[in-house]
């Protein structure tokens, strides 16, 4: 087990692919993305029932060493400022294999 950071991002589904590509280029060790989440926040309700994905969120989880966090947040910040969402960082331990 090694200590790590768990970053959890909620972002509009249509913006998620671009963010994931940017994260890939940054060289994050990996990510997991859950599509089709509903939500509510400053920008009102996203009911997740849309034909277009416009009103739907994706949830992205990244496990990474503490050292990577700053660079990731620098990518995530502008993205969620532009079109809404949240980003939480917490401590975890990672089962190494």
């Amino acid at each position: 087990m090694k200590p790590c950071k768990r970053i959890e991002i909620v972002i509009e589904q249509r913006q998620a692919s671009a963010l994931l590509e940017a994260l890939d280029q940054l060289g994050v060790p990996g990510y997991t993305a859950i599509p089709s989440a509903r939500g509510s926040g400053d920008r009102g309700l996203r009911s997740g029932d849309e034909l277009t994905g416009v009103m739907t969120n994706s949830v992205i989880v990244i496990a990474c060493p503490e050292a990577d966090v700053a660079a990731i947040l620098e990518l995530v910040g502008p993205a969620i400022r532009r079109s809404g969402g949240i980003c939480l960082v917490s401590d975890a331990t990672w089962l190494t294999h």
Partner: protein
Amino acid sequence: MELFLSNIASPPLLFFFLGLAAALLRSDLDVPASVAKFLSLYLLFAIGFKGGVALRETDIGWGVAASLLAALTLAFIVPLIAFAWLRRKMSLADAAALAATYGSVSAVTFVTCTSYLDAAGIPWSGHLVAALAIMESPAIMVGIMLYRRFAPQASGTDSRAYSGAAVAREAFLNGSVFLIIGSLIIGWVTGSAGMDQVGVLVKDLFTGVLCLFLLDMGLVAAQRLRDLRKLALVAFGLIFPLLMAFLSAVLAISIGLSEGDALLLTILGASASYIAVPAAMRLAVPDANPGLYLPMALAVTFPMNLIVGIPLYHLFIRTVMY
């Protein structure tokens, strides 16, 4: 009056009402999102294919060219009128997004109108489907360009801003635009031999599937309506399409379109996009509020066109023509 009744008593519209009623009464009836998406893909596929096969049997002459030119003209003019109207009343981003929304078209409204014409036995031409395909993209570009042109110092467009190529991609490679154009071409290429192979799916099931899809649209429209509480916006969503319908009908009649084709061009001018344009606007004009343009197109203008618009425009065209 008779037109209104026969329109309202058609299965597709009644299922739309059923969906509205279910949502307003808070029934837990719902159509899974992935299925609704698929039904919409089917409708684009079927109308595109049918249009392409019909187009093949038309000789491309003045009539076709005139319709397409008229469609293209509307696609550029309507968003400009909408923008001029709205510019002072809201943020730049919202005005631009609404201009794109109302300048573009709703394929589902169009499709419901073809099913109205079929039920009434009024013929219409395949090249109107081409007009539909042509009108989807330009308004998106106009909207984005207006937004950029008037933005003080490119506000809201930071370093990761939206490039010109991306704008074009949103406008032309949008999934629904792409599918309808592709199906149109494939229908045109394979002609009646192709229709023999897929006719049962594309023609015989069409109205039935439309019923199921409009059931879902009724559910979604009523839910969206709850989000929209500004009366001025509701008024715009009701009045602006009427004016554009008037404009389009006059244009259609003056270039000599037939009754059915004129009604279809009119509904193209009057309808607002709630699938292709919102998807594009979220990327190109992210600071526009989707809580405005989406419910206006889907919960105000779409039902208005379906319930009142189609027979009203039809009446107008009939009165003028005969």
